[in-house]
Each structure stands twice: as C-alpha cells, then as structure tokens.
C-alpha cells in the first residue's frame, strides 16, 4: 500500500492536470478503492509539508501549502489573484455546498439568471461543467482543484459545515419544518 502511495505521488508530480481516481486506478492497474485509500493516506502524510495534496471531485493534485502563499507568490513574481465579485462568490458558494448542481437549480436558489457568473467561474477554472450523472443530456457544475488552490484549502471537506454557517438563519418558529423540507428537496 505504501508503494501505491509513492506511485500516486510521483504521477501527481509529473501530471499537468489533476488526476482522477479512475485515471490513477487504470494506469496503476489497481482497484479504485485501493487508490482512494492510498491517496487519502498520502493527503494525511503530506498535510504538514510544504507541498500538499489537494482533493476535489475531479481528482488529486499537488500544490504548495496555502500558508506559504505569500512566499511563493513573491518567488514566482505572480500577480495577486483578482478577488471574486459578489455575484460570482454567491454562485460559487452554492456550487461548493450543493455540488453537483445544475444551472436551473442555482438560478432557483438565487432567483436570478446566473449565466454570466457561471461563465466567469468557468473561465477562471474555479468550477467545471460535467454531464449530469442522472441525465446525460444536461450538465451539472462542481468545484475544481483550482477552487481549492484559490481558497487555500485541501478539499471541500475542509469548508465549515453548511449547517454551522447558517444556524442563525432560519425561518421563525412554526414554518421551520417547511424550510428543512425545502432544503432536502434540492439534492446535495
């Protein structure tokens, strides 16, 4: 198993894009479950290093530790990333906590056409469009490893729980049950 970890790490190092569990399993001729176990152990093992492993739905990727961002930015002479606008960050929040989610579902939550915000996020590589697993004719959106890089976190699991963030914001008294029902009806 340790050997699998090493192999995964070396491939992530030379790959020019995030590698999915499927791609890793196929290339390493290993079971997907084993790849997941090994990769998760790798994430743990590297968590305190200067180079860490990011995990998004699209796959795994190596990146510098976010607390070193200032240093690396200066070293690369990289420009500050442009800050997100209100609209794009709203859409991003919905996608991050409800992914995979369709455009229609995003717009139902925001009550407004979100085409341009979604496009802006796609262009920045913070989200990506994939075929809807339940209906191949339509698409759904999810966040990418670029989103993790941008936010300085290692996986969407590193985000605070939705319930934790919004516990102050509930419907008053009786209609509460209704609100919960609404939430559940939209697929997480």
């Amino acid at each position, binding site marked *: 198993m340790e050997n699998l970890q090493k192999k995964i790490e070396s491939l992530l*190092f*030379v790959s*020019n894009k995030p590698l999915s569990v499927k791609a890793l399993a196929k290339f390493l001729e290993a079971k997907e479950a084993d790849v997941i176990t090994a990769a998760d152990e790798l994430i743990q093992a590297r968590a305190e290093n200067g180079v*860490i492993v*990011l995990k998004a739905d699209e796959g795994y*990727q*190596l*990146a*510098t*530790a*976010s*607390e070193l*961002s*200032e240093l*690396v*930015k200066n070293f*690369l002479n*990289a420009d*500050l*990333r442009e*800050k*997100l606008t*209100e*609209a794009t*960050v*709203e859409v*991003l*929040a*919905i996608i*991050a*906590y409800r992914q995979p989610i369709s455009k229609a579902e995003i717009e139902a*939550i*925001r*009550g*407004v*056409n979100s*085409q341009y915000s979604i*496009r802006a996020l796609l262009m920045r590589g913070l989200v990506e469009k994939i075929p809807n697993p339940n209906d191949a004719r339509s698409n759904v959106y999810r966040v990418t*490893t670029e989103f*993790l*890089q*941008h*936010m*300085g*976190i290692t996986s969407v699991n590193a*985000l*605070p729980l*939705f319930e934790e*963030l*919004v516990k*102050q*914001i*509930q*419907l*008053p008294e009786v*209609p509460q049950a*209704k*609100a919960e029902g*609404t*939430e559940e009806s939209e697929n997480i």
Partner: protein
Amino acid sequence: MHKIKIQQFEGPLDLLLSLIEDQQLDITQISLATVTEQFLKYVKELTELDPTSLADFLSIAARLLVIKSKAILPTLEIEEAEEETGEDLAAKLVLYRQFKEVAKHLKKLDMQGQQSFTRETVFSQRVSFFPDPEVSPDALRDSVLKVLQGLKELDNLPKAQIREAISIQEKIDSLQIMLSRQIETKLSDVLKTAKNKPEVIITFLALLELIKQRIFIVEQTELFTEITIKQYEKTDRESEVEIINSNPA
C-alpha cells in the same frame, strides 16, 4: 417609509432581503407583504435601467402581489398562486440568505489571499511531436462551428429576455384602451389575453398600478366570485376594494 436605494442588486431575492433587513423584519409572509410596494417601486425604476433582468424581478413581483392581495383579501383565489405560496417564498428567501452567509465565508477566504500554487512551468515545454491522427482540417472546422453555436446562444440570451419583458407601460396603455371601449371587464378575461406567464405577471402589475392611481377599481360582489374591473367613478367609492394600500398593512 424607507427610500428606495437605486443600486445594483444581485437579483430580486437580494433586493427583497435588503428591503426586509432595512426594516429589521423577520422573514415572514407578513413582512413580505409589507415590503411589496417598495419592491414594485424598484422594479418600475428597473424597467428603464436594466431590461435584461426584468423577467426575474417580475416573477417575484407577481408572487409578492399575490401574497399582498391575499393579506388584504383572504378570500382571493388566484390560480397562479397555487404553485407557490407565501410560505414557499419566505422559505426560499431564507435559503437564499443562508447562501449569502456561506458566500460571506468564501469571500473571507478569498480576502485572506491564502492560496496554493501548482507547478506550471516545467511541463509547458514541448516534449515531442504527438499529433492525434483523427484531428483533420474538417474536424477543426466542425469544432469551430460548435464554438460559434455556443457564442450565438450567449449573444441571444439577453435579447430573448428583453423580448419577454413587454413593458408595463404598454400594458397599462392597452388596458386603458380596453376599458374605454367597454364599461367593465372581468379579471379572468384580462388574464386570458396574456400569452405566457411573464405577460400574466405584467398584466397584474399594470392593473395594480392603475388601481393605485385610482384610474381603475375592482369589485367582488361575493366571496369566491369573479373580480370585476371598472373605470374609477366617484359614486363607486363605497364598494371599492383596494388591493394595494398606499400604506403597508
């Protein structure tokens, strides 16, 4: 009453939230009814400012009107309302507000500017020549045609929305012409002329505006019966039913 700020809102729910929060109200059906008029005032300004997002605002405006109407006329039956009630809208608003809170958190992460970097430089150099045998000039042409299709759809999007959003003023004019030809008409007949949902909404808005300006009045003789629309006359004052009050209930 608060003055309406002409500013950019991220959509009708954003506007609605800010109106409710300005008055420090909870998100309830009653507070929705309370801010309905301010909401409509904003939407009227919007018709001149930004027609592209009008359709989104109008659909919420219509729901608010139903809520407001029901608050004043508990017996009022409007078919459109059956899809979603005031409770639904309040729940929706709560959910939206929750996501605004989540967005605030992401914004904080964004502002911290802590980010990770991947390696980009090393492998952007040419390794060798590896063409894909299937990529022919025709394949490239097809791919460009597909991209062009996508661009066309993007361009058409705002135009399609504008087309949908027939102006309220136009509707007001046509309703006035309609009632100048006949003494009275029925609400259901007026709504029947609407070709689609946005037009139903606009018809409603136009009607309410006319009632508010005391050009039209509406009457309902008995519970659950047809609502009649007439030109305003002084003698009708006693039987007048105002759907919109100039002051919040």
